């Protein structure tokens, strides 16, 4: 695998993991997901409208999340995404994989001792 391809796959995998994690506890709409990612990453990671929604639709198409239009009190009608049972299994697998990957990288690069 070439470096650009590896970089793309890593980003792609990490983006899926982030979104699945954020809708694990409760349904969230797209803008809320993008703001949480930006806030928790301290501005390092940002999803804009052009990159976020194609990804959301792809996850929805795979059956990992489910979007539904809903109206909450005092708010306008929005599309909320929640994790499906199938998505929960994928999330669990991806978490394990990423933890292993990060741990391996840390051991290799010596970052855990830095």
């Amino acid at each position, binding site marked *: 695998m070439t470096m650009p391809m590896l970089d793309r796959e890593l980003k792609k995998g990490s983006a899926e993991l982030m979104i699945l994690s954020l809708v694990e506890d409760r349904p969230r*709409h*797209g*803008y809320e997901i*993008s703001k949480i990612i930006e806030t928790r990453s301290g501005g390092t990671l940002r999803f*804009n*409208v*052009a*990159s*976020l*929604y*194609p*990804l959301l*639709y*792809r996850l929805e*198409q795979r059956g990992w999340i489910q979007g539904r*239009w809903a109206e909450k009190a005092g708010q*306008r009608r*929005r*599309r909320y995404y929640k994790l499906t049972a199938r998505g929960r299994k994928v999330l669990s697998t991806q978490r394990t994989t990423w933890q292993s990957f990060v741990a391996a990288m840390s051991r290799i690069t010596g970052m855990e001792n830095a």
Partner: protein
Amino acid sequence: MPEFRSEVRTRLASLKLAPTREAAIVEEMAQHLDDRFEELRAAGASPHEAYAAALDELDQGGLLAKGLRQTERQARFDPVPPGGPWHGGFLTHLGQDCRYAVRGLRLSPGFAVVAVLSLALGIGANTAIFQLLNAVRLRNLPVRNPGELFYLKVPNSHGRVGNFRASFPMFTNPIWEQIRDHQQAFSALAAWNSTSFNLATGGRSHIVRGMYVNGFLQCAGTGSGGGEVVLCRRRQEGLRITWSSDQLPVLAKPF
């Protein structure tokens, strides 16, 4: 607040998505851009700067069209969204209409049962009413030239002998015979008289309603000689009345 829907819709046009799907995506992304615009405005950007920045994010690297092209299937046909423009002929959307109706009925079985029963009752009632109307008013009489039949009335009863106040004018038999024999306007005339007949040959009387008739077969175009026609009914029974060649009605066997 600037309008982002048209901007999103323009950028999705090349994907040729199904209109309902496109409308949902446009709504969702426009909301996101609205929020982003408000966020930029709150951070101190001018409306123009905030609008331009939001559009820049929408256009970033052609990600939107590229990403959606991978996930969204292009519409094989062009379904009509609720309230949307209607194109094509009746048959074009017949299948979609049927599928929509079946889905709607399946979602509400109670409503479906009520709707089907209402339709069944409505169709049944209309059929019954039409059959009655057809038998009484629409269907032609079973005669040779039903369009040439006329019902005669006497407009001026002054000086004439008979009863002209009933539903049908009533003449004495001699006057009827004079009219029948000397009129020149019609090929034939017919008359009748409702009455009761005693069918018993002895003992207890057996009264049935019937009619004396004259000229019916000529008017019906079935010939001028003897004939047979049903003229009276009593419950499910009736009588056949047979004409002899001298036009006198004779009560015949029951049927």
